[in-house]
């Protein structure tokens, strides 16, 4: 039930089965791309190998191959160091990511739908302002936002990290394009004729049609939130509110000198490996949603 115009190929289609079978396989191309894939996977391979080593082995063995197998001790250290704060960080990351991505996706979907399906006074101006905001370097806003939050006594709270991340101008843009494409106005009119309220139409008809697009926005907001370093670094003081990137960076920096230094390398490395796994898994399972959402946005841009 693709919502995209019928003369385009359904974006969820996979290569096999939809293509004319007569296309020859170019082994040259395949090999070349696979070599490039090696480049992309190399650091991750290092990460896996390094996670199996103890601190001592890390400094004295060849980086890209194994030494003594220490993975389970490393994992245990990661999960129990500093009273298990890593688990707390992981839960924080999940919390931030889920709340932010769902919130951002919902806000963007609602706004995008409104811009696409209603021609209301001020709509064009508002949309232009929102688009303009894509140009504003969000990272350059972080410091003033921090100062504002400090005045409002909201720093070092979960809101301090969630609120700024709920705004996704690009998400609104994407959803507007998607809504224009995926939501047939005649369906809405039919609802109106039946006397259904506008908001109800949105929730029951519009939202369902825009779901793949919403999930795309959700996914990108998810990644942005999971990987966010700068914003939580500035906003948060208490380690129990840190997400994983900030916590890991703090561990990494305890090795950098002065009294109280601890060389935490194997812990940081194994912790990093564990932090990458959830997103990889999420992507594996949610692959098919990216394309249909992005397809409309990309082509119509």
């Amino acid at each position, binding site marked *: 039930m693709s919502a995209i115009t019928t*003369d385009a*190929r359904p974006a969820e289609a996979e*290569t096999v089965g939809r293509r004319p079978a007569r296309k020859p*396989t*170019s082994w040259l*191309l*395949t090999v070349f*791309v696979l070599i490039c894939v090696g480049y*992309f*996977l*190399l*650091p*991750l391979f*290092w*990460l896996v190998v*390094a996670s199996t080593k103890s601190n001592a082995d890390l400094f004295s063995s*060849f*980086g890209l191959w194994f030494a003594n197998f220490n993975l389970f001790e490393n994992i245990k250290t990661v999960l129990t160091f500093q009273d298990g704060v890593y688990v707390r960080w992981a839960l924080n990351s999940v919390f931030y990511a889920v709340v932010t991505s769902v919130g951002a996706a919902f806000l*963007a979907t*609602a*706004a995008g*739908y409104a811009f696409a399906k*209603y021609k*209301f006074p001020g*709509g064009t101006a*508002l949309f232009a302002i929102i688009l303009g*905001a894509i*140009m*504003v*370097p969000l990272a*350059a*806003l972080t410091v*003033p936002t921090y100062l504002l939050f400090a005045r409002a006594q909201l720093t070092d709270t979960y809101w301090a990290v969630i*609120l700024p991340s*709920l705004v996704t*101008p690009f998400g609104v843009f994407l959803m507007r394009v998607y809504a224009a494409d995926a939501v047939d106005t005649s369906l809405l009119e039919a609802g109106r004729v*039946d006397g259904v309220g*506008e*908001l109800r139409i*949105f929730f029951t008809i519009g939202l369902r049609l825009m779901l793949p697009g919403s999930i795309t926005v959700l996914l990108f907001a998810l990644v942005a939130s999971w*990987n966010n*370093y*700068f914003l939580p670094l500035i906003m948060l003081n208490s380690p129990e509110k840190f997400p*994983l*990137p900030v916590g890991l960076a703090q561990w*990494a920096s305890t090795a950098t000198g002065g009294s109280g230094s601890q060389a935490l390398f194997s812990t*940081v*490395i194994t912790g*990093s490996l564990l*932090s*990458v796994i959830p997103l990889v898994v999420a*992507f*594996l399972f949610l*692959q098919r949603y*990216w394309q249909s959402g*992005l*397809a409309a946005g*990309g*082509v119509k*841009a």
Partner: protein
Amino acid sequence: MSTLVDSEPTTAVPTRQPRVSASKRRQYGAAYVLVLPFFVIFVAMIIVPLVYSGYLSLFKKRLIGGTSFAGFENYIRALQDPLFLTGVGRMAIFLVIQVPIMIALSLFFALALDSGMMRLAKFSRLAIFIPYAVPGVVATLMWGYLYGPDFGPFAQVTKALGFGPPPFFTPIGMLFSIMNIVSWAFIGYNMILIYAALRSIPTELYEAARVDGASEARIAWSIKIPAIRPALLLTVIFSVIGTFQLFTEPKLMFSLAPNVIGTAWSPNLYAYNISFVNQDANYAAALAFLLGIVIMIVSYVVQLTNQRRERRS
């Protein structure tokens, strides 16, 4: 079932009516309600800090003497500040070299995957995309290790061959080292954007060419690429914005090469250090504002160039 709620007749062409119909008013209302949540937070998190930033940038704070009004002093200082200017210049070089290479590679991989001439396409697609899912902190950690001049694998290989370690951490080398990390992380992301656009191209557009015997490469060049021009433009603009905002990678590379990175390797890093190390939020605000203006100008130029090219073709 249900009857019309309001007593006024709805019309098919409300814009011709001198008075707005109730149905339209209901729709406007709904539109505002739907846009409101986003917009309120948008104003609070983007507009207000922006204005506050502008306000702050007009003041000056000293350790002795406190805060005082300074007019455009901070801006003049920033425009003459060699650290800021070299940071911006460095980002411009970064932009001119890294973005085209990255987009070109993303395009190449997307086309390769779309061509259907590959085995293990799905695996490759996922593998190239995975780096995007890796937090910048972890990516810099991994590459920082790989770049190590004594014990990193590349150095070990070159040493075994009799050369010195590869110059990853010289001032010029650092530029490429960080370019590499950013490309590694974002080629997959851009590839997916382009790939999605490619998959939306109606097949009829190039079936004819295929029947005529055109090679896949020819089809890619003459048909597919022009068809996805808007998507390409999008990826370029995002890359422009992202490049000028570079922060995480230089900050984390600092411990590996503190004298090459310094305090101002990227303008964003500089603003952060000015704000938090020098305790000078006012000057940092001016820097941030200027940076924003630079980004807007460059993005605008990119869009203009694209429009001009489109008009010509």
